[in-house]
């Protein structure tokens, strides 16, 4: 049986970005159909570390990240719940003088982009966090960064979009999509055919495939973050914590569990099957104990992974198609899309409705991976 829908906008992918886009588009009065192969917010949006962080990002990401940060404060009014967002601050630790020099330079550079970071010396960092191990020689604090529960945020956006009138189709795998010169036609499992003026590709690790269908092939790779959590422990880690190099990151949730990640799990995207790797888990455990010796002996109760799209320059792809009108892509968040997701949704809605966005997204254009296309365009 064939079911035909004719919305203004079709969205492939129900992560935070896709659901936030659906919600924003509905608020601007457009009709939306969103399709996800599984459940909304259950992919990278739901299995990531849960960092809501601007510190450490590539400088060109800061305008988008700053816009997103403001939305995180407004989640209750926007989607009806706070997603356990807490502005706990984010501390980036230096484990060498080279690291510290890096943090100092980043703080100076980021100040030009409006990000207020506080550098902390070797004594002060231990005064602030007496539980840190000896390898830590300094830190940089972004007091306004924080953390949230990734399992709650994506679904909350999906429900808000649905309440606003978006047609959210879960367990609906998109099989093909095409453009007839006028409209897009998306065919999904179960006989669903969606014909729309606009198409937004926010399919996460699978977005490269969708881009390929339209000649927008991008050099996307797959990341499989290796995540681990301990049993609940007395609360003492009051900040979200990262390190220079990014090989270990951790936070302690209100309930007391310490969530930490580092290294890569195993995954086969064709099978849609991913698993933590013991080597990665043990590697991050060793680094965790180096940072916070008191965690030695705590019990690990769970580990998990998921698929995330990764670009060679570690920057997402956000913007219009190189080949077709009214086709937008946003993917390849390279392990830091959770914080950005809410703003990406708004930006996408602006690109559809207004044809432009005031947020600077130039650095994310698809053209950067097609120098010939770019230069040709310049000449023309």
């Amino acid at each position, binding site marked *: 049986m064939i079911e035909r829908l004719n919305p203004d906008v079709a969205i492939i992918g129900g992560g935070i970005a896709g659901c936030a886009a659906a919600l924003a588009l509905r608020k601007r009065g457009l009709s939306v159909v969103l399709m996800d192969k599984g459940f909304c917010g259950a992919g990278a949006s739901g299995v990531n570390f849960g960092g809501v962080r601007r510190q450490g990002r590539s400088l060109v990401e800061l305008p988008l990240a700053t816009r997103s940060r403001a939305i995180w404060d407004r989640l209750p009014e926007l989607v009806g719940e706070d997603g356990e967002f807490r502005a706990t601050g984010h501390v980036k630790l230096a484990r060498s003088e080279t690291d510290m020099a890096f943090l100092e330079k980043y703080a100076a550079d980021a100040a030009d982009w409006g990000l207020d970071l506080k550098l902390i010396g070797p004594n002060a960092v231990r005064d602030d966090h007496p539980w840190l191990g000896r390898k830590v020689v300094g830190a940089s604090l972004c007091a306004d960064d924080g953390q949230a529960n990734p*399992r709650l945020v994506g679904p909350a956006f999906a429900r808000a979009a649905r309440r606003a009138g978006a047609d959210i189709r879960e367990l609906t795998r998109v099989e093909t999509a095409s453009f007839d010169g006028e409209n897009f036609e998306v065919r999904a499992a179960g006989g669903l055919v969606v014909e729309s003026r606009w198409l937004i590709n926010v399919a996460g690790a699978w977005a490269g495939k969708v881009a390929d269908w339209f000649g927008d092939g991008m050099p996307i790779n797959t990341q499989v973050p290796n995540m681990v959590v301990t049993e609940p422990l007395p609360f003492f880690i009051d900040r979200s914590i990262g390190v220079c190099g990014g090989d270990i990151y951790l936070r302690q949730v209100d*309930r007391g569990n310490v969530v930490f990640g580092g290294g890569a799990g195993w995954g086969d995207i064709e099978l849609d099957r991913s698993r*933590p790797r013991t080597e990665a888990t043990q590697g991050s455990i060793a680094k965790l*104990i180096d940072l916070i010796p008191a*965690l030695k002996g705590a019990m*690990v*109760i*769970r580990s998990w992974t998921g698929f995330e799209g990764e670009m060679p320059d570690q920057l997402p792809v956000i913007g219009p198609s190189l080949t077709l009108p009214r086709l937008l892509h946003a993917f390849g968040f390279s392990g830091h899309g959770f914080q950005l997701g809410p703003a990406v949704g708004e930006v996408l809605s602006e690109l559809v409705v207004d044809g432009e966005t005031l947020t600077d997204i130039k650095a994310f254009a698809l053209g950067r991976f097609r120098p010939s296309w770019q230069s040709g365009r310049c000449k023309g």
Partner: protein
Amino acid sequence: MAEAIVIIGAGPAGVRAARTLAKAGHRPVLIDENMRVGGQIYRQPPPGAERAPDALYGFEAAKAVAIHRALDGLDIDYRPETLVWNAREKVLDLTGPRGSERLAFDRLIQATGATDRSIPFPGWTLPGVFSLGGSQIALKAQGCAIGRRVVFAGTGPLLPLVAYQYAKAGAQVAAVLDTSSFATKLKAAPGLLVLPKLFAKGLYYLAQLKRRGIPVIEGVDGFALEGAAKPEAITWRRGTETGRIECDAVGAGFGLRSETQLADLLGCAFAFDDLTRQWLPTKDAEGRASEQHLYLAGDGSGIAGADAAELAGERVAWTLLGDIGQAVDGTRIAILDRGLARIARFRRAIEAAYPFPHRLHAAIPDTQIVCRCEGVTAGHLKFQVEQREASEMNRLKAYSRLGMGRCQGRMCASAGAELLSHWRDVEVGTVGRLRGQAPVKPVPVA
């Protein structure tokens, strides 16, 4: 090169498999969490606390001793006190007396056994409340009772057995509350006669309880504990009838559930079993899982009891031997298969006599903790279903934390699924099952 064969679990199934393989010239690795072989049913006390087999195992003493001695003189790489906490493809992650290590295998027999199945009831998280199996282990391994005045509640063949064992050991058993009615059991009696000896044993336990004047109340529709810090009394109801029994400890259990996490991590296919309302790894008639190098035997892949586990353990070893091109004993296999078929018929009658009382879930109050590890109440779960539109077990887990704690859902997933299906008014087999995640049991940060 010889096949690297690993057996997980040294209960009746794992021991029989190991013996069969060793006698066929292999040196299997036999991994077990316990200190000594025997599994839960034939659990041996720790060294220094031994007692006579008759006192420990009653009617089953001869079988228990046979299992304990089955590996004597055989060359087996036996690794007690070792936990398999993760498995992927052909590698196991172990932690035990030798520390953490990885173990590669060519073929794997999973004889992972079972644990009690729980249904939350008011007071079930109080100290002094044990599972039925836990009550039995306290008696068998430690030689102690769970309380001075004990009530056993729930259902299943273990219920009268444990009550009888406690009474026989001199403990005061205040009552037995069975959610299965006398009429239900009577209806199942013809099927139980498939194995007359086992049926007679069940009747004997009940008769012994009656002889000692222990009230056995059948067809109970629910129970709750009184007491803030420990159980003081248990109240029960049956239709409009109610009762109250003073006690200081409760052993509660509702049949058994297979330990299937490793099978899940290994990618075995699962199917929902309507009779027992559980998800089980699928296996063919010869004990092969969906993955051809993986084998399943014993209660870890469907509850059938210790006798069946012994037969299945040996059977699956023969299957494995056949699969690697070794000669097999066809006559012996036919005997094993006939025995297993007979027990399977008996087992269906047991399930009919002691049906899993899923009706009890409807009465769970909103304040009741369902997931003990994470402190998730029924009301919190209901919120996820009604407000956050959780329609499936992994969504329910993601939103509520049910099954995210130390036990990884081993104790609460059944109740979570029953509640989810009750609130959504759909069959419990349609709400999915929790995805397994390593570690199967907690492992230290070290």
